[in-house]
């Protein structure tokens, strides 16, 4: 008995000891490389954005943001996000509810479909809408006859953004809801609650932090999307330019300070998102799915 115990202790102890003795140098190198890499590729560019934005001074910075076309771009980005995020929020909750709580045929296919926007290049996502609603498409003449403008207008931008940001909420909630199972819902139903009451009083509170997390990521992407929106927008100044598109236009005009001023807003959005995300993860890690995806 004593022998067996000793043996088990030594097998546990041996690799642990090796791991600590080897680690000092390895850890130093690994951390050095990581910080150097992060510094050069992430922190430095971020710093450059802010430095360039304020290169002509603080008054010039705010003047650039108040410039009518830029102000319109900011308003458009906020509008698009305000439509796309709630839509995807509703869709994401519905999809993950269906996938996690019910058994049906074609479930695997549905999950693959939800992932589609992640695997398709954003430019293609935009192109899909051009092909669908463009003048040369089957729908094109019909839309034109009825005076419905989708492409090169706000509806097209909203559609492209919805498409691209479509998986964020669902992807966050599906594993969480699968993990939680259906017993809480069954308990609520057995107590006489209706389907809606069960959803509102039981399911939603159980997923609230995961949902918030998904909404945060979805919003960051909705405001920052460039590729898909660029294809459908038509780049009409003051009308169909979102913030990322405005950055490109200003930059191409060699108006660097203004370009970086708008870029700094997007960078700020990213930083705020990151901080909120970290806070959420710290406080509610157990209630947010642990499947950390880097999108």
């Amino acid at each position: 008995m004593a022998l067996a115990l000793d043996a088990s202790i030594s097998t546990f102890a041996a690799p642990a000891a090796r791991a600590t003795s080897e680690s000092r140098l390895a850890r130093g190198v690994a951390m050095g490389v990581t910080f150097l890499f992060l510094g050069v590729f992430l922190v430095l560019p971020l710093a450059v954005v802010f430095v360039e934005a304020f290169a002509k001074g603080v008054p010039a910075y705010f003047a650039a943001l108040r410039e009518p076309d830029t102000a319109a771009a900011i308003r458009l980005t906020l509008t698009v996000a305000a439509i796309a995020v709630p839509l995807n929020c509703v869709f994401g909750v519905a999809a993950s509810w269906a996938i996690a709580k019910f058994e049906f045929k074609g479930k695997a296919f549905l999950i693959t479909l939800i992932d589609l926007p992640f695997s398709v290049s954003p430019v293609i996502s935009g192109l899909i809408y051009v092909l669908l609603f463009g003048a040369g498409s089957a729908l094109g003449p019909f839309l034109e006859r009825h005076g419905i403008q989708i492409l090169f207008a706000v509806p097209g931008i909203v559609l492209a953004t919805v498409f691209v940001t479509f998986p964020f909420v669902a992807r966050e909630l599906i594993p969480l809801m699968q993990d939680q199972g259906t017993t809480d819902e069954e308990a609520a139903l057995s107590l006489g609650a209706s389907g809606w009451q069960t959803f509102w009083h039981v399911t939603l509170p159980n997923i609230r932090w995961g949902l918030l997390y998904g909404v945060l990521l979805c919003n960051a992407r909705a405001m920052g999307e460039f590729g898909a929106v660029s294809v459908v927008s038509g780049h009409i100044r003051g009308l169909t330019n979102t913030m990322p598109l405005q950055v490109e236009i200003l930059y191409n005009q060699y108006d660097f300070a203004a370009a970086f001023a708008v870029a700094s807003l997007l960078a700020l959005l990213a930083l705020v998102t990151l901080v909120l995300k970290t806070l959420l993860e710290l406080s509610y890690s157990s209630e947010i799915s642990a499947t950390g995806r880097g999108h």
Partner: protein
Amino acid sequence: MEVRIDHVRKEFDRFPALHDVSLTIGSGELVALLGPSGSGKTTLLRLIAGLETPTEGKIFFGEEDASLKSVQERHIGFVFQHYALFRHMTVLENVAFGLKVRPRRDRPAWLEIRKRALELLDLVQLGGMEKRYPQQLSGGQRQRVALARAMAIEPTVLLLDEPFGALDAKVRKELRRWLREIHDRTGHTTVFVTHDQDEAMELADRVVVMSQGAIEQVGTPDEIYDRPNSPAVFGFVGESNALPVRIEKGEAWFADRPIGVEVDGEADGDAILYFRPHDVELRDGCGGCVAGPVVASRRVAGNRHVELEIGAERHRVEIAIPPGHLAAGLSRLAFRPTRWTLFRVAEARAA
């Protein structure tokens, strides 16, 4: 309320979980569904609750056909193995939930709901805990909250799915006794699922033994234990030995000798003799007994259980002897079953 299950069959994706089950549960009765995992006991409970719908057959609550009613319409109280308490609600809110979600015209005033919930918490001995959250309670306390929550809606039937399965042995025993008291006090028709035979025997008025999607036997704990009607029940309820024997002229033979078991009126042929470890008497010599070397010995509660290997095929049997008994030290023992049940080989195989 009486619950009648009438020729119910249930399949999951063509996989049969229950074949043709019929059972009547009397009003106010406390019934245990006992069986190994996969025997269909939980499926049967969920069918009664309305959490599953039968593939065939009907379920009656009293005179009323409840088969097509939804869970909500059945007014059952369901207690889950892992409690399923709403974690973002306090204990009081959990217990009050069933009353709060009622449509306005049936819903009591909040003060009335609160009063009822607090009374129930007193009944389950959790008075003063109403402001806590489920995470702040022990497993036993959580399950009592779950029971109070189920009882708050004044259910027609109380259904419990392995209610004590996730608790440790001591708490389990306490809760068992306490559930019996609550049942006797409130008189709810109660059905609970368990794979723990002690739990079923100690708690239930009647035990329903299930195996492979069918009911094997229904009876009082005494009937089930003393007169099991199939090898499956004998094997599952209590400890048992199965000895292959041959019947010749009203006597049971093992290998080349009679074992001191007279079975008048049994036809000659092969059979299996079932007996319990403590239903034996030790013998000195061996004229009419089973004998063999002792291969293992262990202490089981108040007895010492000794395993013998008998016959050329080294068939193992286990017998119980008092721990201080002289025989406990012997390397070879002889005994004779004093109580037994005989199943013909065909029946035993079928099980």
